[in-house]
Protein backbone atom coordinates (compact mmCIF):
# COMPACT_ATOMS: atom_id res chain seq x y z
CA UNK A 1 0.00 0.00 0.00
CA UNK A 2 2.73 2.40 0.79
CA UNK A 3 5.46 1.04 -1.38
CA UNK A 4 6.25 4.55 -2.52
CA UNK A 5 7.59 5.48 0.88
CA UNK A 6 11.25 5.30 0.38
CA UNK A 7 12.63 7.87 2.80
CA UNK A 8 16.13 7.66 1.42
CA UNK A 9 14.87 8.30 -2.08
CA UNK A 10 12.69 11.22 -1.14
CA UNK A 11 14.06 14.33 -2.73
CA UNK A 12 14.30 17.23 -0.34
CA UNK A 13 14.91 15.01 2.63
CA UNK A 14 17.85 15.81 4.75
CA UNK A 15 18.50 12.37 6.14
CA UNK A 16 18.10 13.70 9.66
CA UNK A 17 17.30 11.14 12.28
CA UNK A 18 14.32 11.08 14.53
CA UNK A 19 14.60 13.39 17.49
CA UNK A 20 16.88 15.98 15.95
CA UNK A 21 15.56 19.53 15.79
CA UNK A 22 14.14 19.98 12.30
CA UNK A 23 12.90 23.53 12.63
CA UNK A 24 13.44 26.12 15.28
CA UNK A 25 11.74 29.47 15.62
CA UNK A 26 13.60 32.01 17.76
CA UNK A 27 12.11 35.22 19.13
CA UNK A 28 9.91 35.77 16.10
CA UNK A 29 7.69 38.85 15.97
CA UNK A 30 5.33 39.75 13.16
CA UNK A 31 3.25 42.89 12.80
CA UNK A 32 0.94 44.28 10.13
CA UNK A 33 1.26 48.01 10.42
CA UNK A 34 0.41 48.63 14.06
CA UNK A 35 -1.26 45.28 14.64
CA UNK A 36 0.98 42.76 16.35
CA UNK A 37 0.10 39.27 15.19
CA UNK A 38 2.98 37.42 16.84
CA UNK A 39 5.16 38.65 19.68
CA UNK A 40 8.50 37.15 20.50
CA UNK A 41 7.68 33.49 20.03
CA UNK A 42 10.22 30.67 20.22
CA UNK A 43 9.67 26.94 19.88
CA UNK A 44 11.03 24.01 17.95
CA UNK A 45 9.78 21.06 15.98
CA UNK A 46 11.79 17.86 16.13
CA UNK A 47 12.05 15.32 13.37
CA UNK A 48 9.33 12.70 13.42
CA UNK A 49 6.96 14.23 15.95
CA UNK A 50 3.41 15.50 15.73
CA UNK A 51 3.49 19.04 17.04
CA UNK A 52 0.23 20.80 17.80
CA UNK A 53 -0.22 24.57 17.89
CA UNK A 54 -3.34 25.55 19.77
CA UNK A 55 -4.90 28.68 21.12
CA UNK A 56 -8.10 30.73 20.98
CA UNK A 57 -9.20 32.39 17.73
CA UNK A 58 -6.92 35.22 16.72
CA UNK A 59 -4.04 33.91 18.78
CA UNK A 60 -1.72 34.00 15.76
CA UNK A 61 -1.62 30.31 14.89
CA UNK A 62 -2.18 30.63 11.17
CA UNK A 63 0.20 33.57 11.03
CA UNK A 64 2.79 31.30 12.65
CA UNK A 65 2.35 28.69 9.91
CA UNK A 66 2.54 31.43 7.29
CA UNK A 67 5.85 32.52 8.78
CA UNK A 68 7.17 28.96 8.74
CA UNK A 69 6.47 28.42 5.08
CA UNK A 70 7.71 31.78 3.96
CA UNK A 71 4.42 33.46 3.13
CA UNK A 72 4.90 36.15 5.77
CA UNK A 73 8.26 37.57 6.69
CA UNK A 74 8.68 38.30 10.39
CA UNK A 75 10.14 41.67 11.34
CA UNK A 76 12.25 40.12 14.07
CA UNK A 77 13.65 36.73 14.96
CA UNK A 78 15.20 33.86 13.08
CA UNK A 79 14.02 30.57 11.69
CA UNK A 80 16.42 27.66 11.66
CA UNK A 81 15.61 24.88 9.20
CA UNK A 82 17.64 21.67 9.32
CA UNK A 83 20.27 23.35 11.43
CA UNK A 84 20.78 26.32 9.13
CA UNK A 85 19.45 29.81 9.76
CA UNK A 86 17.06 30.51 6.93
CA UNK A 87 17.24 33.72 5.01
CA UNK A 88 14.10 35.50 3.85
CA UNK A 89 12.59 33.10 1.37
CA UNK A 90 9.72 32.87 -1.05
CA UNK A 91 6.94 30.35 -0.42
CA UNK A 92 7.89 28.22 -3.44
CA UNK A 93 11.44 27.97 -2.07
CA UNK A 94 10.07 26.68 1.21
CA UNK A 95 8.06 24.18 -0.80
CA UNK A 96 11.11 22.96 -2.65
CA UNK A 97 12.89 22.65 0.69
CA UNK A 98 10.36 20.08 1.82
CA UNK A 99 7.66 22.08 3.60
CA UNK A 100 4.09 21.35 2.51
CA UNK A 101 0.82 22.51 3.98
CA UNK A 102 -2.93 22.44 3.91
CA UNK A 103 -5.19 25.39 4.53
CA UNK A 104 -7.83 26.48 6.97
CA UNK A 105 -10.25 27.37 4.20
CA UNK A 106 -9.77 24.71 1.58
CA UNK A 107 -7.42 26.09 -1.06
CA UNK A 108 -7.78 23.60 -3.87
CA UNK A 109 -7.68 24.38 -7.55
CA UNK A 110 -11.41 24.32 -8.09
CA UNK A 111 -11.47 24.00 -11.84
CA UNK A 112 -9.20 20.96 -11.91
CA UNK A 113 -9.93 17.31 -11.23
CA UNK A 114 -8.78 15.52 -8.09
CA UNK A 115 -6.12 13.79 -10.11
CA UNK A 116 -4.78 17.04 -11.58
CA UNK A 117 -4.76 18.69 -8.18
CA UNK A 118 -2.60 15.97 -6.76
CA UNK A 119 -0.42 15.85 -9.86
CA UNK A 120 0.23 19.58 -9.41
CA UNK A 121 1.77 18.67 -6.06
CA UNK A 122 4.28 16.51 -7.95
CA UNK A 123 5.34 19.49 -10.04
CA UNK A 124 8.51 20.11 -8.09
CA UNK A 125 9.71 16.58 -8.77
CA UNK A 126 9.20 16.79 -12.52
CA UNK A 127 12.07 18.07 -14.58
CA UNK A 128 11.48 17.42 -18.27
CA UNK A 129 11.86 20.63 -20.19
CA UNK A 130 9.41 22.67 -22.19
CA UNK A 131 10.08 21.08 -25.57
CA UNK A 132 9.53 17.55 -24.30
CA UNK A 133 6.32 18.75 -22.72
CA UNK A 134 5.21 20.14 -26.08
CA UNK A 135 5.65 16.70 -27.60
CA UNK A 136 4.21 14.81 -24.64
CA UNK A 137 6.15 11.82 -25.87
CA UNK A 138 9.25 9.87 -24.98
CA UNK A 139 10.89 11.00 -21.72
CA UNK A 140 8.12 13.45 -20.91
CA UNK A 141 5.49 10.76 -21.26
CA UNK A 142 7.51 8.33 -19.14
CA UNK A 143 7.85 10.99 -16.47
CA UNK A 144 4.10 11.69 -16.51
CA UNK A 145 3.31 8.02 -16.10
CA UNK A 146 5.85 7.52 -13.35
CA UNK A 147 4.36 10.34 -11.31
CA UNK A 148 0.86 9.23 -12.11
CA UNK A 149 1.75 5.91 -10.47
CA UNK A 150 2.90 7.66 -7.29
CA UNK A 151 -0.22 9.78 -7.28
CA UNK A 152 -2.35 6.67 -7.64
CA UNK A 153 -0.62 5.24 -4.58
CA UNK A 154 -1.56 8.31 -2.58
CA UNK A 155 -5.10 8.08 -3.93
CA UNK A 156 -5.26 4.48 -2.71
CA UNK A 157 -3.83 5.43 0.65
CA UNK A 158 -6.43 8.14 1.26
CA UNK A 159 -9.23 6.07 -0.26
CA UNK A 160 -10.36 8.63 -2.83
CA UNK A 161 -10.31 6.41 -5.94
CA UNK A 162 -13.92 7.12 -6.80
CA UNK A 163 -13.45 10.85 -7.19
CA UNK A 164 -10.28 10.69 -9.25
CA UNK A 165 -11.74 12.41 -12.30
CA UNK A 166 -14.20 14.70 -10.53
CA UNK A 167 -13.56 18.45 -10.58
CA UNK A 168 -12.87 19.25 -6.92
CA UNK A 169 -15.29 22.17 -6.92
CA UNK A 170 -18.11 19.60 -6.98
CA UNK A 171 -16.87 17.58 -3.99
CA UNK A 172 -18.31 17.83 -0.49
CA UNK A 173 -16.23 19.66 2.09
CA UNK A 174 -14.86 16.61 3.89
CA UNK A 175 -13.54 15.09 0.69
CA UNK A 176 -12.01 18.39 -0.37
CA UNK A 177 -10.02 18.41 2.85
CA UNK A 178 -8.82 14.92 2.03
CA UNK A 179 -7.80 15.89 -1.51
CA UNK A 180 -5.90 18.79 -0.03
CA UNK A 181 -4.01 16.40 2.23
CA UNK A 182 -3.32 14.20 -0.79
CA UNK A 183 -1.90 17.15 -2.68
CA UNK A 184 0.40 18.00 0.21
CA UNK A 185 1.50 14.38 0.52
CA UNK A 186 2.28 14.26 -3.17
CA UNK A 187 5.07 16.71 -2.44
CA UNK A 188 6.67 14.08 -0.17
CA UNK A 189 7.39 16.76 2.39
CA UNK A 190 9.72 16.50 5.32
CA UNK A 191 7.52 18.83 7.35
CA UNK A 192 3.79 18.89 6.84
CA UNK A 193 1.81 21.86 8.15
CA UNK A 194 -1.89 21.19 8.69
CA UNK A 195 -4.11 24.19 9.35
CA UNK A 196 -7.26 22.92 11.07
CA UNK A 197 -7.48 19.68 9.09
CA UNK A 198 -10.68 18.70 10.86
CA UNK A 199 -12.60 21.97 10.87
CA UNK A 200 -16.24 21.52 9.91
CA UNK A 201 -16.10 17.73 9.84
CA UNK A 202 -18.45 15.28 11.50
CA UNK A 203 -17.25 12.73 14.01
CA UNK A 204 -16.71 9.96 11.49
CA UNK A 205 -14.76 12.17 9.13
CA UNK A 206 -12.65 13.37 12.05
CA UNK A 207 -11.80 9.81 12.96
CA UNK A 208 -10.82 9.04 9.38
CA UNK A 209 -8.67 12.14 9.18
CA UNK A 210 -6.98 11.41 12.51
CA UNK A 211 -6.11 7.94 11.29
CA UNK A 212 -4.64 9.32 8.06
CA UNK A 213 -2.55 11.83 9.98
CA UNK A 214 -1.17 9.20 12.32
CA UNK A 215 -0.48 6.87 9.38
CA UNK A 216 1.39 9.58 7.55
CA UNK A 217 3.45 10.29 10.62
CA UNK A 218 4.20 6.71 11.54
CA UNK A 219 4.56 5.03 8.18
CA UNK A 220 6.25 7.79 6.18
CA UNK A 221 8.09 9.37 9.09
CA UNK A 222 6.77 12.79 8.07
CA UNK A 223 7.06 15.46 10.74
CA UNK A 224 3.73 17.16 11.28
CA UNK A 225 2.75 20.51 12.76
CA UNK A 226 -0.98 20.98 13.10
CA UNK A 227 -3.41 23.59 14.27
CA UNK A 228 -6.63 22.21 15.68
CA UNK A 229 -9.45 23.37 17.89
CA UNK A 230 -10.77 19.95 18.86
CA UNK A 231 -8.90 19.31 22.10
CA UNK A 232 -9.74 15.61 22.10
CA UNK A 233 -8.00 15.22 18.75
CA UNK A 234 -5.05 17.34 19.82
CA UNK A 235 -4.48 15.37 23.01
CA UNK A 236 -4.72 12.06 21.18
CA UNK A 237 -2.57 12.88 18.18
CA UNK A 238 0.18 15.14 19.30
CA UNK A 239 3.49 14.47 20.98
CA UNK A 240 4.01 18.05 22.10
CA UNK A 241 1.76 21.10 22.18
CA UNK A 242 2.54 24.79 22.01
CA UNK A 243 -0.17 27.20 23.16
CA UNK A 244 -0.52 30.72 21.81
CA UNK A 245 -2.70 33.52 23.09
CA UNK A 246 -2.81 37.09 21.80
CA UNK A 247 0.28 36.37 19.74
CA UNK A 248 2.34 35.20 22.71
CA UNK A 249 3.42 31.76 23.76
CA UNK A 250 1.87 30.80 27.08
CA UNK A 251 2.74 27.13 27.33
CA UNK A 252 4.81 24.44 25.64
CA UNK A 253 5.11 20.76 26.46
CA UNK A 254 3.48 17.33 26.35
CA UNK A 255 -0.34 17.29 26.13
CA UNK A 256 -0.97 16.25 29.76
CA UNK A 257 1.25 19.00 31.08
CA UNK A 258 -0.30 21.68 28.92
CA UNK A 259 -3.76 20.51 29.83
CA UNK A 260 -3.19 21.25 33.48
CA UNK A 261 -1.34 24.53 32.94
CA UNK A 262 -3.19 27.37 34.70
CA UNK A 263 -2.42 29.97 32.00
CA UNK A 264 -3.90 27.72 29.34
CA UNK A 265 -7.04 27.14 31.34
CA UNK A 266 -7.37 30.88 31.88
CA UNK A 267 -6.87 31.63 28.20
CA UNK A 268 -9.56 29.21 27.16
CA UNK A 269 -12.04 29.99 29.91
CA UNK A 270 -11.51 33.72 29.68
CA UNK A 271 -9.79 35.34 32.60
CA UNK A 272 -9.33 39.09 32.15
CA UNK A 273 -6.21 39.64 30.12
CA UNK A 274 -3.46 41.74 31.62
CA UNK A 275 -1.16 43.54 29.28
Amino acid at each position, binding site marked *: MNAFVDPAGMAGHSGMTKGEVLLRVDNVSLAFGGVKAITNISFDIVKGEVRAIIGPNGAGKTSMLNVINGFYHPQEGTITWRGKVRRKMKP*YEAASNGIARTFQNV*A*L*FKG*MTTLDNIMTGR*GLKMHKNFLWQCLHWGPALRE*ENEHRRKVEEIIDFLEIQAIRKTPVGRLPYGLQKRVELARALAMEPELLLLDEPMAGMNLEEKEDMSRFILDVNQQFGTTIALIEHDMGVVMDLSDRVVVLDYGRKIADGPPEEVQSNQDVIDAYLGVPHEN
Partner: protein
Amino acid sequence: MLYREAGQFKTTYQADQGIFPIAQDRYVVWAFLAVAFLVVPFFVNDYWTNAVLLPLLIYGMAALGLNILVGYCGQISLGTGGFMAVGAYASYKLMTSFPEMSMIVVVLLSGGMTAAVGVMFGLPSLRIKGFYLAVATLAAQFFLVWLFNKFGWFYNYSATGQISAPERELFGVVLTGASAQTWVKYLFCLTFLTVFALIAKNLVRGRLGRNWMAIRDMDIAAELIGVRPLMTKLSAFAVSSFYIGMAGSLLFTIYLGAVEVGEVFGINVSFLVLFMVIIGGLGSIVGSFMGAAFLVLLPIFLKNFMVDGLGLMPVMAKHVEILLMGLLIIFFLIVEPHGLARLWQIAKEKLRMWPFPY
Protein backbone atom coordinates in the same frame (compact mmCIF):
# COMPACT_ATOMS: atom_id res chain seq x y z
CA MET B 1 -26.31 3.92 -29.28
CA LEU B 2 -23.18 3.93 -31.33
CA TYR B 3 -21.56 6.29 -28.88
CA ARG B 4 -20.72 4.03 -25.96
CA GLU B 5 -17.59 3.53 -23.97
CA ALA B 6 -18.65 0.30 -22.32
CA GLY B 7 -16.08 -2.40 -22.94
CA GLN B 8 -13.22 0.04 -23.50
CA PHE B 9 -10.88 -0.64 -20.62
CA LYS B 10 -7.74 1.33 -20.01
CA THR B 11 -4.81 -0.80 -19.01
CA THR B 12 -2.11 1.85 -18.93
CA TYR B 13 -1.94 5.33 -17.48
CA GLN B 14 -0.94 6.50 -20.92
CA ALA B 15 -4.18 5.32 -22.46
CA ASP B 16 -6.13 6.85 -19.61
CA GLN B 17 -4.45 10.23 -20.12
CA GLY B 18 -5.01 10.23 -23.89
CA ILE B 19 -6.47 13.23 -25.66
CA PHE B 20 -9.55 11.30 -26.76
CA PRO B 21 -10.01 8.45 -24.29
CA ILE B 22 -13.21 7.29 -26.00
CA ALA B 23 -12.62 5.31 -29.17
CA GLN B 24 -15.56 6.78 -31.10
CA ASP B 25 -14.18 10.27 -30.52
CA ARG B 26 -10.90 9.19 -32.03
CA TYR B 27 -12.59 7.84 -35.18
CA VAL B 28 -14.57 11.04 -35.64
CA VAL B 29 -11.51 13.24 -35.22
CA TRP B 30 -9.47 11.19 -37.68
CA ALA B 31 -12.31 11.28 -40.18
CA PHE B 32 -12.68 15.02 -39.69
CA LEU B 33 -8.98 15.61 -40.27
CA ALA B 34 -8.97 13.35 -43.32
CA VAL B 35 -11.80 15.35 -44.87
CA ALA B 36 -10.16 18.65 -43.99
CA PHE B 37 -6.82 17.67 -45.48
CA LEU B 38 -7.72 15.34 -48.34
CA VAL B 39 -11.18 16.30 -49.53
CA VAL B 40 -11.79 19.98 -48.86
CA PRO B 41 -8.79 21.34 -50.84
CA PHE B 42 -10.18 19.84 -54.05
CA PHE B 43 -13.62 21.31 -53.69
CA VAL B 44 -13.31 24.74 -52.14
CA ASN B 45 -13.90 27.81 -54.21
CA ASP B 46 -12.35 31.22 -53.61
CA TYR B 47 -15.35 32.69 -51.87
CA TRP B 48 -15.52 29.97 -49.26
CA THR B 49 -11.81 29.99 -48.59
CA ASN B 50 -11.53 33.74 -48.30
CA ALA B 51 -14.75 34.48 -46.49
CA VAL B 52 -14.92 31.50 -44.19
CA LEU B 53 -12.10 28.98 -44.06
CA LEU B 54 -9.02 31.18 -43.82
CA PRO B 55 -10.45 33.59 -41.21
CA LEU B 56 -11.69 30.59 -39.28
CA LEU B 57 -8.27 28.93 -39.22
CA ILE B 58 -6.37 32.11 -38.44
CA TYR B 59 -8.70 33.44 -35.78
CA GLY B 60 -8.86 29.91 -34.43
CA MET B 61 -5.11 30.11 -33.91
CA ALA B 62 -5.40 33.52 -32.21
CA ALA B 63 -8.26 32.33 -30.00
CA LEU B 64 -6.26 29.26 -29.06
CA GLY B 65 -3.37 31.48 -28.00
CA LEU B 66 -5.55 33.83 -25.99
CA ASN B 67 -7.34 30.90 -24.38
CA ILE B 68 -4.03 29.64 -23.03
CA LEU B 69 -3.52 32.95 -21.28
CA VAL B 70 -7.06 33.73 -20.19
CA GLY B 71 -8.70 30.34 -19.96
CA TYR B 72 -5.82 28.30 -18.58
CA CYS B 73 -3.69 30.81 -16.70
CA GLY B 74 -6.44 33.24 -15.74
CA GLN B 75 -4.66 36.42 -16.86
CA ILE B 76 -7.00 38.67 -18.84
CA SER B 77 -5.41 40.35 -21.83
CA LEU B 78 -6.85 43.03 -24.09
CA GLY B 79 -3.68 43.37 -26.13
CA THR B 80 -4.34 40.64 -28.70
CA GLY B 81 -4.59 43.08 -31.61
CA GLY B 82 -1.23 44.60 -30.73
CA PHE B 83 0.45 41.21 -30.45
CA MET B 84 -0.99 40.11 -33.80
CA ALA B 85 0.49 43.27 -35.25
CA VAL B 86 3.90 42.28 -33.87
CA GLY B 87 3.61 38.95 -35.68
CA ALA B 88 2.60 40.61 -38.93
CA TYR B 89 5.35 43.23 -38.88
CA ALA B 90 7.96 40.69 -37.83
CA SER B 91 6.98 38.58 -40.87
CA TYR B 92 7.17 41.59 -43.12
CA LYS B 93 10.65 42.54 -41.93
CA LEU B 94 11.85 38.95 -42.16
CA MET B 95 10.41 38.42 -45.63
CA THR B 96 11.88 41.61 -47.02
CA SER B 97 15.25 41.27 -45.28
CA PHE B 98 15.78 37.58 -45.97
CA PRO B 99 14.04 36.73 -49.25
CA GLU B 100 15.41 33.19 -49.17
CA MET B 101 13.87 32.33 -45.84
CA SER B 102 11.21 29.61 -45.93
CA MET B 103 7.72 30.74 -45.02
CA ILE B 104 7.55 28.08 -42.32
CA VAL B 105 10.56 29.64 -40.63
CA VAL B 106 9.15 33.12 -41.13
CA VAL B 107 5.91 32.26 -39.36
CA LEU B 108 7.69 30.46 -36.52
CA LEU B 109 10.19 33.28 -36.00
CA SER B 110 7.38 35.85 -36.04
CA GLY B 111 5.72 33.85 -33.30
CA GLY B 112 8.98 33.80 -31.38
CA MET B 113 9.42 37.56 -31.58
CA THR B 114 5.85 38.11 -30.48
CA ALA B 115 6.51 35.80 -27.54
CA ALA B 116 9.41 38.01 -26.48
CA VAL B 117 7.24 41.13 -26.69
CA GLY B 118 4.45 39.31 -24.86
CA VAL B 119 6.76 38.42 -21.99
CA MET B 120 7.76 42.06 -21.70
CA PHE B 121 4.17 43.18 -21.37
CA GLY B 122 3.45 40.24 -19.10
CA LEU B 123 5.93 41.40 -16.49
CA PRO B 124 3.40 43.63 -14.67
CA SER B 125 1.22 40.54 -14.12
CA LEU B 126 3.40 39.63 -11.19
CA ARG B 127 2.26 42.66 -9.27
CA ILE B 128 -1.17 43.47 -10.62
CA LYS B 129 -4.13 41.21 -11.07
CA GLY B 130 -7.55 40.88 -12.66
CA PHE B 131 -9.02 43.90 -14.38
CA TYR B 132 -6.09 46.07 -13.41
CA LEU B 133 -3.97 43.77 -15.52
CA ALA B 134 -6.54 43.79 -18.32
CA VAL B 135 -6.38 47.56 -18.48
CA ALA B 136 -2.59 47.43 -18.29
CA THR B 137 -2.48 45.17 -21.36
CA LEU B 138 -4.37 47.87 -23.22
CA ALA B 139 -1.12 49.78 -22.91
CA ALA B 140 0.46 47.12 -25.13
CA GLN B 141 -2.37 47.44 -27.62
CA PHE B 142 -2.11 51.20 -28.02
CA PHE B 143 1.64 51.40 -27.75
CA LEU B 144 2.34 48.73 -30.35
CA VAL B 145 -0.12 50.11 -32.88
CA TRP B 146 1.39 53.56 -32.39
CA LEU B 147 4.89 52.17 -32.75
CA PHE B 148 4.23 50.46 -36.09
CA ASN B 149 2.48 53.54 -37.41
CA LYS B 150 5.11 55.97 -36.28
CA PHE B 151 8.41 54.53 -37.33
CA GLY B 152 9.04 54.10 -41.02
CA TRP B 153 11.58 51.34 -40.44
CA PHE B 154 8.79 48.91 -39.63
CA TYR B 155 7.05 49.40 -42.98
CA ASN B 156 10.25 50.01 -44.96
CA TYR B 157 9.28 53.67 -45.41
CA SER B 158 6.58 52.81 -47.94
CA ALA B 159 4.60 55.84 -49.05
CA THR B 160 1.23 54.48 -47.97
CA GLY B 161 2.38 53.32 -44.57
CA GLN B 162 1.05 49.90 -45.48
CA ILE B 163 2.94 46.65 -45.51
CA SER B 164 2.35 44.15 -48.28
CA ALA B 165 3.57 40.58 -48.52
CA PRO B 166 5.94 39.79 -51.40
CA GLU B 167 5.44 36.61 -53.40
CA ARG B 168 7.00 33.51 -51.86
CA GLU B 169 6.98 29.87 -52.82
CA LEU B 170 6.90 26.82 -50.61
CA PHE B 171 7.90 23.45 -52.08
CA GLY B 172 7.65 24.98 -55.55
CA VAL B 173 4.09 26.26 -55.11
CA VAL B 174 3.26 29.94 -54.83
CA LEU B 175 2.07 30.57 -51.27
CA THR B 176 1.89 34.32 -50.77
CA GLY B 177 1.14 37.25 -53.01
CA ALA B 178 -1.59 37.83 -55.56
CA SER B 179 -1.02 34.74 -57.71
CA ALA B 180 -1.23 32.23 -54.87
CA GLN B 181 -4.07 29.76 -55.17
CA THR B 182 -6.50 29.50 -52.35
CA TRP B 183 -6.12 25.78 -51.70
CA VAL B 184 -2.42 26.30 -51.02
CA LYS B 185 -3.17 29.00 -48.48
CA TYR B 186 -5.82 26.83 -46.92
CA LEU B 187 -3.55 23.81 -46.55
CA PHE B 188 -0.70 25.90 -45.15
CA CYS B 189 -2.89 27.45 -42.44
CA LEU B 190 -4.62 24.15 -41.71
CA THR B 191 -1.30 22.36 -41.20
CA PHE B 192 -0.05 25.04 -38.84
CA LEU B 193 -3.23 25.03 -36.84
CA THR B 194 -3.37 21.24 -36.58
CA VAL B 195 0.21 20.91 -35.40
CA PHE B 196 -0.05 23.72 -32.90
CA ALA B 197 -3.41 22.64 -31.58
CA LEU B 198 -1.81 19.30 -30.76
CA ILE B 199 1.11 21.03 -29.05
CA ALA B 200 -1.28 23.20 -27.05
CA LYS B 201 -3.19 20.14 -25.92
CA ASN B 202 0.06 18.46 -24.89
CA LEU B 203 1.12 21.48 -22.90
CA VAL B 204 -2.13 21.89 -21.02
CA ARG B 205 -2.27 18.25 -19.98
CA GLY B 206 1.33 18.27 -18.77
CA ARG B 207 3.11 19.87 -15.84
CA LEU B 208 3.15 23.37 -17.30
CA GLY B 209 -0.58 23.29 -17.99
CA ARG B 210 -1.32 22.13 -14.46
CA ASN B 211 0.80 24.94 -13.08
CA TRP B 212 -1.06 27.45 -15.24
CA MET B 213 -4.39 26.21 -13.98
CA ALA B 214 -3.13 26.20 -10.40
CA ILE B 215 -2.19 29.87 -10.72
CA ARG B 216 -5.58 30.57 -12.30
CA ASP B 217 -7.62 28.83 -9.62
CA MET B 218 -5.73 29.95 -6.52
CA ASP B 219 -2.43 31.68 -6.96
CA ILE B 220 -1.42 31.78 -3.31
CA ALA B 221 -1.97 28.07 -2.76
CA ALA B 222 -0.10 27.36 -5.97
CA GLU B 223 2.89 29.28 -4.74
CA LEU B 224 2.83 27.47 -1.42
CA ILE B 225 3.04 24.09 -3.11
CA GLY B 226 6.01 25.14 -5.15
CA VAL B 227 4.71 26.74 -8.35
CA ARG B 228 6.84 29.74 -9.21
CA PRO B 229 4.35 32.50 -10.02
CA LEU B 230 6.61 34.66 -12.15
CA MET B 231 7.92 31.86 -14.34
CA THR B 232 4.49 30.32 -14.72
CA LYS B 233 2.74 33.52 -15.66
CA LEU B 234 5.48 34.60 -18.02
CA SER B 235 5.49 31.20 -19.72
CA ALA B 236 1.76 31.57 -20.29
CA PHE B 237 2.31 35.03 -21.75
CA ALA B 238 5.11 33.67 -23.95
CA VAL B 239 3.22 30.65 -25.30
CA SER B 240 0.05 32.64 -25.75
CA SER B 241 1.84 35.45 -27.58
CA PHE B 242 3.64 32.90 -29.74
CA TYR B 243 0.32 31.58 -31.02
CA ILE B 244 -1.15 35.04 -31.40
CA GLY B 245 1.98 36.21 -33.24
CA MET B 246 1.69 33.30 -35.66
CA ALA B 247 -1.95 34.17 -36.19
CA GLY B 248 -0.98 37.76 -36.96
CA SER B 249 1.72 36.55 -39.31
CA LEU B 250 -0.68 34.23 -41.17
CA LEU B 251 -3.34 36.91 -41.31
CA PHE B 252 -0.95 39.30 -42.99
CA THR B 253 1.16 37.04 -45.21
CA ILE B 254 -1.39 34.46 -46.30
CA TYR B 255 -4.82 35.95 -45.92
CA LEU B 256 -4.80 39.72 -46.40
CA GLY B 257 -1.51 40.24 -48.22
CA ALA B 258 -1.51 43.94 -47.33
CA VAL B 259 -2.14 45.51 -43.98
CA GLU B 260 -2.59 48.91 -42.39
CA VAL B 261 -1.94 48.49 -38.70
CA GLY B 262 -4.64 50.71 -37.22
CA GLU B 263 -7.40 49.13 -39.28
CA VAL B 264 -6.53 45.47 -39.03
CA PHE B 265 -5.02 45.21 -35.58
CA GLY B 266 -7.08 47.75 -33.66
CA ILE B 267 -8.65 47.23 -30.28
CA ASN B 268 -11.74 45.72 -31.92
CA VAL B 269 -9.66 42.68 -32.83
CA SER B 270 -8.65 42.29 -29.20
CA PHE B 271 -12.28 42.21 -28.18
CA LEU B 272 -13.27 39.96 -31.06
CA VAL B 273 -10.73 37.30 -30.11
CA LEU B 274 -11.65 37.59 -26.45
CA PHE B 275 -15.28 37.03 -27.41
CA MET B 276 -14.28 33.95 -29.36
CA VAL B 277 -12.57 32.57 -26.29
CA ILE B 278 -15.46 33.34 -23.96
CA ILE B 279 -18.22 32.16 -26.26
CA GLY B 280 -16.23 29.09 -27.21
CA GLY B 281 -15.38 28.24 -23.64
CA LEU B 282 -12.62 29.32 -21.29
CA GLY B 283 -10.03 26.64 -20.79
CA SER B 284 -11.01 24.49 -23.74
CA ILE B 285 -8.96 23.89 -26.88
CA VAL B 286 -11.86 22.77 -29.01
CA GLY B 287 -13.91 25.64 -27.59
CA SER B 288 -11.47 28.13 -29.08
CA PHE B 289 -12.25 26.79 -32.54
CA MET B 290 -15.97 26.73 -31.91
CA GLY B 291 -15.88 30.33 -30.73
CA ALA B 292 -13.85 31.37 -33.76
CA ALA B 293 -16.23 29.56 -36.11
CA PHE B 294 -19.23 31.15 -34.45
CA LEU B 295 -17.95 34.70 -34.64
CA VAL B 296 -16.60 34.33 -38.17
CA LEU B 297 -19.84 32.86 -39.50
CA LEU B 298 -22.30 35.00 -37.56
CA PRO B 299 -21.61 38.37 -39.27
CA ILE B 300 -21.65 36.73 -42.71
CA PHE B 301 -24.94 35.10 -41.94
CA LEU B 302 -26.45 38.28 -40.49
CA LYS B 303 -25.31 40.38 -43.41
CA ASN B 304 -26.58 37.97 -46.04
CA PHE B 305 -29.83 37.57 -44.21
CA MET B 306 -30.52 41.27 -43.81
CA VAL B 307 -29.21 42.69 -47.07
CA ASP B 308 -30.25 39.90 -49.43
CA GLY B 309 -33.10 38.43 -47.43
CA LEU B 310 -34.81 41.48 -46.01
CA GLY B 311 -33.53 44.06 -48.46
CA LEU B 312 -32.22 46.46 -45.83
CA MET B 313 -29.88 49.26 -46.85
CA PRO B 314 -26.28 48.24 -46.18
CA VAL B 315 -25.75 51.14 -43.75
CA MET B 316 -28.84 50.29 -41.79
CA ALA B 317 -27.90 46.62 -41.93
CA LYS B 318 -24.55 47.50 -40.38
CA HIS B 319 -26.26 49.20 -37.44
CA VAL B 320 -28.65 46.32 -36.97
CA GLU B 321 -25.76 43.89 -37.21
CA ILE B 322 -23.95 45.66 -34.35
CA LEU B 323 -27.13 45.60 -32.30
CA LEU B 324 -27.77 41.91 -33.00
CA MET B 325 -24.15 40.94 -32.28
CA GLY B 326 -24.49 42.62 -28.90
CA LEU B 327 -27.79 40.92 -28.16
CA LEU B 328 -26.51 37.51 -29.22
CA ILE B 329 -23.39 37.84 -27.10
CA ILE B 330 -25.44 38.73 -24.04
CA PHE B 331 -27.88 35.94 -24.84
CA PHE B 332 -25.08 33.41 -25.07
CA LEU B 333 -23.45 34.53 -21.86
CA ILE B 334 -26.76 34.15 -20.06
CA VAL B 335 -27.67 30.79 -21.54
CA GLU B 336 -24.28 29.15 -21.17
CA PRO B 337 -21.55 31.19 -19.51
CA HIS B 338 -19.16 28.28 -19.93
CA GLY B 339 -19.42 28.53 -23.67
CA LEU B 340 -20.05 26.30 -26.63
CA ALA B 341 -17.52 23.77 -25.37
CA ARG B 342 -19.72 23.07 -22.35
CA LEU B 343 -22.80 22.67 -24.56
CA TRP B 344 -20.82 20.23 -26.68
CA GLN B 345 -19.77 18.29 -23.60
CA ILE B 346 -23.34 18.10 -22.32
CA ALA B 347 -24.51 16.93 -25.73
CA LYS B 348 -21.90 14.18 -25.69
CA GLU B 349 -22.88 13.06 -22.21
CA LYS B 350 -26.50 12.89 -23.29
CA LEU B 351 -25.50 10.92 -26.35
CA ARG B 352 -23.64 8.38 -24.24
CA MET B 353 -26.87 7.57 -22.42
CA TRP B 354 -29.13 7.75 -25.41
CA PRO B 355 -31.81 6.44 -25.79
CA PHE B 356 -32.13 6.21 -22.02
CA PRO B 357 -32.63 9.41 -20.00
CA TYR B 358 -30.14 8.37 -17.28
